């Protein structure tokens, strides 16, 4: 079983590593978009999937990261990839400040406030807040990133950057799932009162989920800014938040493979069916309605964690 998994992992990595060599730059760029949305989906998955907090304003955290990168790079000429931790921190700090007063809100109320936050951020960016964000034109002239002396220009070069960042994300988030922190988020989602009654500081973990999700979205924002070299408020609308949200729900809340599949379908399929023009959105919408009726848990739902029980206690599956 373990060997089978290792082989599957090696094959997948191999395919992903050589894939862009067989595709034209347009399709490689589609893959890059899928990758960016997949990582954004994974970051939102911490908040929505694992903790069960409805956040329809995730694009605002993404925006804070992207604008941090753009401003610091264009004003102070700090190499853009060096700014990844700074972007993560600024988005995390933003989430901390924004989420602190609203974290006690339940379900739909929290959801509405996050929509409001998203709009505030977008409108603030359009209004050229602090004279730094460039208004509705956004910021252009962000430097191309440099990795070990090589400047990344082509979609293929970015593909490997995004792939590497995605791999690190998947690895760390899987570790997080199998930890005290990851479990605490799930307890909260399952039953908040019971979680409190088991000794879990629920307010703390809700906030921490928001911050971790935002830190990651902020770091993706950096990569996005580096890839586009120009960013504008248009890229961080409520609709972007909806897409990231749909990726998580459609793919499977709380499931890493599910979210990745969700990104492939939500971002990739519309590209495949571009010939169908507007009809594709109709098909897309209908598919989503169908999903929510027939498979509410998503395409690849979260699987139970596996534990190796301590020696001397063999039978886990027995009983009943």
């Amino acid at each position: 079983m373990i060997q089978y998994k290792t082989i599957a992992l090696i094959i997948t990595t191999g395919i992903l590593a050589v894939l862009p060599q067989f595709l034209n730059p347009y399709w490689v760029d589609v893959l890059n978009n899928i990758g960016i949305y997949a990582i954004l989906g994974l970051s939102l998955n911490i908040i929505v999937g694992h903790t069960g907090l409805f956040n329809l304003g995730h694009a605002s955290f993404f925006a804070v990261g992207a604008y941090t990168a753009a401003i610091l790079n264009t004003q102070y000429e700090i190499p853009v990839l060096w700014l990844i931790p700074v972007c993560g921190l600024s988005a995390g700090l933003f989430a901390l400040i924004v989420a602190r007063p609203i974290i006690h809100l339940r379900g739909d109320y929290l959801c509405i406030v996050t929509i409001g936050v998203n709009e505030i951020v977008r409108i603030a960016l359009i209004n050229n807040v602090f004279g730094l964000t460039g208004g509705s034109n956004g910021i252009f002239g962000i430097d191309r990133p440099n990795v070990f002396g090589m400047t990344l220009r082509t979609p293929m070069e970015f593909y490997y950057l995004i792939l590497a960042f995605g791999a690190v994300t998947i690895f760390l988030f899987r570790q997080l799932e199998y930890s005290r922190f990851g479990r605490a988020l799930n307890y909260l989602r399952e039953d908040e009162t019971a979680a409190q009654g088991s000794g879990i500081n629920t307010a703390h973990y809700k906030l921490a989920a928001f911050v971790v999700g935002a830190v990651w979205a902020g770091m993706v924002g950096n990569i996005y800014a580096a890839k586009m070299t120009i960013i504008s408020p248009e890229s961080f609308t409520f609709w972007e938040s909806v897409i990231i949200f749909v990726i998580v729900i459609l793919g499977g809340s709380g499931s890493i493979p599910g979210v990745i599949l969700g990104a492939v379908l939500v971002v990739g399929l519309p590209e495949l069916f571009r010939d169908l023009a507007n009809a594709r959105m109709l098909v897309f919408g209908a598919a989503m309605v169908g999903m929510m009726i027939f498979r509410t848990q998503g395409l690849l739902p979260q699987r139970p964690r596996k534990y190796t029980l301590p020696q001397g206690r063999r039978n886990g599956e027995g009983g009943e």
Partner: protein
Amino acid sequence: MKLLSVSRLTKSFGGLTAVNSVSFDVQPDTVVGLIGPNGAGKTTVFNLITGIYRADQGEILFKDQSIVNFPTHRIISQGIARTFQTIRLFQNLSALENVLAGCHSQMKSGVLGSLFHTPRQRREEKMALEEAMEALAFVGLDSNALQMARNLSYGKQRLLEIARALATKPSLIILDEPAGGMNEHETWQLVALIGKMKERGITVLLIEHDMSLVMRVCENIVVLEYGSKIAEGPPQEIKTDPRVIQAYLGVEEDD
């Protein structure tokens, strides 16, 4: 030395005084029962002790320290654990993970330790796993460790809640109708389990409707009616107390 001391505890919901100036003490290493007719305010008292509701008035001392209106998670980490009247398990998680929730307050690793699985985090995780298995074994559910909580029988779900509470390493455990929905055999096991907890030095405070169980296991009984304490004492006294009989059976009408 009192383990828990509740004094003049009061809580109203709107116009209804659910708990009215209730005082009682829990001595260490005893089993104390809280009984009373439906709606007497027993669960409300439990929710006040564990910080789920905020008290309007009154004081709660645990190990001589005030815990009144502390947030629940802090009260739990001070050494009070509880189960719920309506089973509140994490239904979609395994029995083991339910118990690991109880281990949470005994562990320390934070976000970074959890992301990077530092050596300390790994050690702690291993310890927690062992302790969780030990708590499951204590209630006799170790062979069900990897089953989903929702797939367990009703009686086993009750036991699992107790295991989760025990994993917080409490010195006082508060059981809200632990025998509710249990068959006779399971109730017998529960009585044995309460005895085992006592042997371990865990003090038990319980609400229960099954009078034979209460009379069998409790050393001291507190009786509530309409939010007020009407009697307190050992089972023999409570059995014969006219006010308690009145509360349960109603008043005999005189002609």
